[in-house]
């Protein structure tokens, strides 16, 4: 039989809360250490224990990180999804199944490897058999695919850092799985793992942890947060790193952490911190941003630096709380009532999560306005390969803050909202300074900050705010362009779609279609985006939602002659984007457009 090396997808079906996540991470880590390009997607439920969970491991020498378009190896442990999982397999797929699950194996057209997982687990320790069952299948996969024992043991040690009993127990269980396969079954499938040379050492990290590190290197001084999936691990990442990164020898920190009573309060605290002259932030998800809308408008109108990270999950309403989507784009860009416009930073890689983590504070203080980081569950909570983080290449920018009396006195005229430099960005003084003491307000105000309902004051203020935020466009992260020569079709995409775009591109290319790519990394849009559209006959805006929110923003802001060049391909089912689905939709759209 011809072998298939490093190009297949394993789907592991278990129940939540059974310890399967540790087993899956050990599998992923050991493959990673062997130099195999691999990605893991945790498809977990909103539940502590009992509901179905799937973990998808994709091995791909091409470096594809999206979940594959089909399952090649199915690991079956969960009776609740057994029949459905089995039915969805293509003929010839491999099934590793728990013989003790009291479920039928009713497919004849698959390669079947029955393993008495529960019985083997009970041999080790009947009391924790349920937890050990998971590591048994990792042992089976190791034997079946040829995963190094050494790498497996290193991954176990990493997973259970310093816990000798747990390490020993798991290594024994791995051995039992391995031995059972060796002694009782013989390999009858083409799938193998081959070691690859690691050219540049990498590590795995979740986007949320990368943002957390970025924020701490950005000098965050206050984190106010309310727990919500999938953002909690971002806030907890900051909390976990404060002792190491932001605490002095006496144990006193330079970053305050307040667990707020709700998202409204968290947003209020962020504004309070910005008003007082500090770098405040919160981490939340769509439902939290919904609750923060009123404060977001205040931050925009009163011009208060404030940073909000949104780890997007599936909406509307409670939606699918543990699934991924890019559906908060419009809400962030035009958040709150009235005319508003906000800066949104959109990382597509863990390196950018770190970079935008610190940059968000600089932009927020430079433009004196709320700044959003838009991540999503896929980028935030799954593990991604990273070569390392780069130290900030710019000094902290605290913006136009007048701290000294002499500087203040040198102003011919001072007004909190006076546009001295013509860039729409006024100067501010801080509470406690005694300089230009004003009552900040969410009501209409004149350039001095005094209450005003005069038509001219309101009109000029709104025009200046527009000028200020529009002025940020080309100062924000520029789009990443990958252009083909004389290519007629462009694709605009954003965020975590970065991890699927190459595979989409390859599928299109296999049908003879070449496309250029433009990854938008910030709102308001950089002028490079418009230039990209101008250079192409047709541009598809690709996004993970139903309505084409980025497409809507482009349509609103582009000149008329470019609008007709745009097409929307928007699709979302909660699962991280699979290349096949989007490629098919793009091909259909191109067909409609006669290109």
């Amino acid at each position, binding site marked *: 039989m011809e072998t298939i090396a490093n190009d297949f997808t394993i789907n592991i079906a278990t129940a939540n809360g059974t310890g399967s996540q540790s087993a899956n991470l050990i599998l992923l880590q050991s493959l990673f250490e062997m130099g195999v390009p691999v990605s893991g997607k945790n498809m977990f439920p909103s539940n502590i224990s009992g509901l179905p969970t799937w973990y998808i491991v994709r091995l791909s020498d091409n470096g594809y990180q999206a979940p594959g378009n089909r399952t090649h190896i199915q690991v079956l442990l969960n009776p609740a999804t057994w029949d459905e999982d089995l039915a969805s397999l293509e003929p010839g797929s491999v099934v590793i199944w728990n013989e003790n699950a009291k479920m039928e194996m009713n497919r004849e057209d698959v390669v079947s490897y029955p393993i008495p997982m529960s019985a083997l687990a009970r041999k080790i320790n009947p009391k924790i058999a349920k937890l050990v069952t998971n590591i048994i299948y990792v042992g089976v996969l190791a034997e079946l695919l040829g995963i190094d024992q050494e790498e497996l043991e290193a991954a176990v040690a990493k997973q259970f850092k310093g816990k000798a009993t747990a390490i020993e127990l798991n290594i024994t269980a791995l051995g039992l799985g391995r031995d059972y396969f060796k002694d009782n079954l013989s390999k009858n499938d083409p799938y193998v793992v081959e070691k690859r040379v690691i050219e540049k050492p990498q590590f795995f990290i979740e986007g949320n942890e990368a943002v957390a590190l970025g924020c701490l290197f950005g000098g965050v001084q206050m984190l106010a947060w309310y727990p919500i999936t999938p953002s909690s691990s971002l806030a907890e990442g900051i909390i976990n790193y404060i002792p190491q990164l932001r605490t002095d020898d006496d144990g006193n920190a330079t970053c305050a952490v307040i667990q707020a009573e709700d998202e409204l309060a968290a947003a209020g*605290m962020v504004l309070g911190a910005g008003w007082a002259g500090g770098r405040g932030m919160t981490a939340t998800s769509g439902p939290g941003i919904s609750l923060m809308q009123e*404060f977001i408008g205040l931050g925009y109108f009163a011009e208060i630096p404030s940073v909000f990270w949104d780890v997007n999950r599936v909406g509307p309403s409670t939606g699918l709380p543990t699934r991924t989507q890019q559906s908060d784009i419009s809400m962030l860009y035009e958040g709150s009532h009235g005319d508003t416009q906000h800066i949104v930073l959109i990382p597509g890689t863990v390196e950018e999560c770190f970079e935008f983590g610190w940059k968000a504070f600089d932009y927020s203080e430079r433009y004196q306005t709320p700044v959003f980081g838009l991540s999503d569950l896929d980028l935030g909570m799954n593990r991604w390969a990273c070569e390392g983080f780069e130290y900030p290449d710019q000094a902290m920018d605290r913006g136009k803050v007048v701290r000294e009396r002499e500087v203040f006195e040198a102003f011919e005229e001072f007004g909190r909202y006076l546009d001295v430099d013509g860039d729409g960005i006024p100067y501010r003084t801080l509470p406690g300074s005694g300089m230009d*003491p004003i009552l900040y307000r969410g009501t209409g105000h004149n350039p001095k900050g005094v209450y005003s309902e005069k038509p001219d004051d309101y009109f000029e203020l709104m025009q200046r705010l527009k000028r200020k935020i529009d002025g940020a466009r080309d100062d924000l992260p520029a789009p990443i362009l990958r252009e083909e020569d004389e290519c007629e079709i462009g694709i605009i995409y954003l965020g975590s779609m970065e991890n699927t775009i190459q595979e989409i591109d390859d599928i299109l290319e296999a049908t003879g279609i070449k496309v250029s790519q433009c990854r938008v990394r910030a709102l308001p849009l950089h002028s490079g985006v418009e230039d990209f559209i101008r250079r192409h006959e047709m541009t598809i805006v690709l996004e993970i939602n139903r309505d084409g929110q980025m497409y809507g923003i482009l349509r609103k802001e582009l000149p008329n002659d470019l609008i007709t060049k745009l097409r929307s391909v928007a699709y979302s089912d909660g699962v991280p984007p699979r290349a096949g689905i989007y490629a098919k939709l793009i091909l259909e759209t191109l067909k409609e457009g006669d290109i």
Partner: protein
Amino acid sequence: MSDKPARAIKLNVLNEPKDSYTGGKSSLCPGCGHDQISNVIISAAWENGIEPHRVAKMSGIGCSSKTPAYYLGQSHGFNTVHGRMPSVTTGAYAINKDLLYIGVSGDGDSASIGIGQLIHAIRRNMDMVYIVENNGVYGLTKGQYSATADIGSKKKKGEPNKTQPIDLCALAINLGCTFVARSFSGSKKQLGSLLKAAMSHKGFALIDVISPCVTFNNNDESMRSYGYVKENEITLHMTDYIPHFNPVEEIEVPEGHFRDIELHDGSTIRLETISAEHDPGSAVAALTALHEAEASQKHVTGLLYFDNTKPSLAEDLGLVDTPLVDVPNEVLRPNRETLDKINAALHS
């Protein structure tokens, strides 16, 4: 030119005239209780020798929340959103714990839309003075009952209130608030002493001030009218404030029984017994006084409850001594070697 000698301007301990503590002209209705409170805030800050620029004036939305424009014109302030002043104050406090935060709120702000934020600010024992200018009605929206309206009380228009009121003092005491007082905008001396004591307190100080609304709720059938409150006020004790810069020996000791409570900055609040002695260290006594007053349709005023044993939020946050706003950038951003270490640890 007048040949009359200029009258000596009275100065406080910082050599500041009272003018340094005033604000803009009020746009509230003439006679509004809130304006009286603003005047007491001005006097208290002046008499206490507070540096005006070290005060942060915080408020929400409503008639009361407009008043920070009318006092302490040398202080920065923030007129935030409805009911959310506590959270904004919390964030500012985390960044600059050394300012004196004076929050002004109304009964709509504090007992309805913002009650959750008030509760959690009390739980955290954040250092601030929180004044509720409590008149039982929404003024800016023209006279709807608020959640503190007393049962049986009738405002100028409409039916008497039938819904159980929320007593913010009782609520605060049950939450372990460390300084709880009630006063009346017409009692300038009592309110002044309580306010100065609140400014000297470390922790959350709530002063619920009955402050009649002359436009919508000052009729005879209202239990929050000037007339009704004057007739039905039960004063727990006479209050005197002795600032730390004014040694106690110089103060005339009253005849009869009194109790001195030392405050965080070394100042003292002296409570002189009127009839029965009230123990502000007893939550039970305070709640009893509140319940008895409510049962007899009276308003009890004075320092209801005081506790100086709890850590304030600043202590709980575990921060460096320097207010975070003054921590330099190079301390806030870890150095390059630290990131190298992080990268190395992630690689291992």
